[in-house]
């Protein structure tokens, strides 16, 4: 038995909210985006946008070739099913709110180009794209609890 057991609710939504907040702050101070730890929020945002682009939200841990575990607990099942619901909805709403009629793939590409610019400091996108991405990040952060 370990010294303590804590119920660890999935924190994907909270992390995504924090990452959106940090990415917004990097738009105000791009030099912060070059710091070592800044790749974490930027890469995570890039990755969940890829998940949205391909509607690829299956993310269950793989247990190997055969499993000796017993049945799944209700808590495990709830967590498995629910982790992406809020993020997926917030991403969709924020993209629509910020990019309007722009096709989703294109909107995702624009946000990702801003994230890449922040991470690398090169290939700055047009100011309008940066402004729309800033709006997207604000909306996304607000939509998450």
């Amino acid at each position, binding site marked *: 038995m370990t010294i303590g057991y804590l119920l660890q609710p999935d924190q*994907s939504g909270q992390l995504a909210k924090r990452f959106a907040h940090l990415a917004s702050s990097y738009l105000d101070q791009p030099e912060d985006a070059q710091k070592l730890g800044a790749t*974490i929020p930027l890469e995570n945002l890039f990755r969940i946008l890829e998940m949205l682009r391909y509607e690829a939200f299956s993310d269950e841990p793989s247990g190997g070739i055969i499993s000796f575990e017993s049945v799944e607990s209700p808590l495990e099942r709830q967590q498995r099913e629910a982790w992406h619901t809020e993020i997926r909805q917030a991403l969709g709403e924020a993209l629509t709110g910020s990019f309007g009629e722009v096709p989703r793939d294109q909107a995702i590409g624009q946000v*990702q180009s801003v994230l890449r610019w922040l991470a690398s400091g090169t290939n700055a996108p047009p100011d309008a794209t940066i402004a729309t991405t800033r709006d997207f990040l604000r909306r996304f952060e607000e939509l998450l609890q």
Partner: protein
Amino acid sequence: MHSPRGILLDECDNLQRVLDETLRSNYGLEGSEDFYTECQARLAYIKSELVNTPEDEHQNLQKSAELLQALSDLLSRIERSSIEHYSWPFVDELKKIALALCTEATLAGPNTPPYVFVLSEGGPGAYAIRPEQQRPSGASRRIHTITLPRTLKHFVLLHAILGHEIGHAMFRCSKHQADLANILSTQLLPGSSLATPATAAAWIYSPNAPIHVRQQLTDLAIRFGVTQGNLWNNFNFNQWREEILCDFLGIMTFGPSFVAAESNVLYGLNPSGAQVGPFHPPTGCRLTYLLSASRLLGYSTRTFSDSELSKSVAAFWAKLEAKRPTDPWYTLFTDAQIQAAANAMANLLHPLPPASYQPPDEEDLLLFTRQFANAVPPVGSYLNNDKAVHCRKIDFRNILEAGWIAATTSSLSFDKLNRLCEYGILQQQAVNISLKA
């Protein structure tokens, strides 16, 4: 006394020391510097979050504590990765397939390979690839862990089962997930027993199910209250579908060796082949559709101009067929469903070399047969009648296939055959380098 935040900041310093100790050593990690940079980024992020979190924001502190725990778990796994404990020639080849299948778009560019390291632990049940999850986490670039059984260090013939595990990692790449899920939902599953959770439960609880299955279901009802109505509240239907998908990816990437390896390992762990798992379908079902796929892909019906080789290959397949359950309950898919799914997967893998399995030339199999007969490693290098050395490029999966055929007909022990194949893979790497020069 430390405050909670103080304890966590101390732990950041501890982790920094572990990181410096772990990745400065030779743990067989190709690109140790990349791992170091990635882990440094993770630690720097957590530390900056902690520094900016007030003492009374307990929820945020706990979030950082969890990220720290995940990072320390990762570092201790990396620390236990030692090339002395696994077959590195095999792993070198496996990584080429894994990287081709798991390359994804990241901040760095449109085709970024993941980081991969190998852990060796446990016995046959340990085979796994554990891709880091895609959901928001403390990771920048994802690090995948390949787990090989410590006890089976040299058993490269069984390692072909990792074709299945690579499938899990591929399914965790967004750009492939939609295509793979589409193959399942449009080609393989419609009209089958696994079309929906309800049809799957009805099939499992069918009165025609084998006695071993019905006994297990009775036991599950008594011990856990699991019934046909609540089966998928306790078992994982999506995981079942993914496991089947990965079996198909296994045969499409490793060919006959995968079928032989999966059959040997899974029946070794579950001799009846009837166990209905929470995450995996019964072994008997898996072997049934893999053998059907082998026939439809022409693997098990292939003949050769050399009659002895034809006999050996036929004996290999006959031995596998003998493991196929006779009860029709184990048959999940029709030939048409299997053929359609295999075709679709072949189209998906074709542009991702060297992922697709290519059957060996007869000439290569004959060469390997002669080499096994002389108890020397199977490799694409030989002396011709003039005693001149001839070399040719041969895929390591063809060496494995020859090894499995020899395992049916040769008097060499399975251990000896595995070691010869491992040496063969290593020597073939040298041959390939010489051919490039």
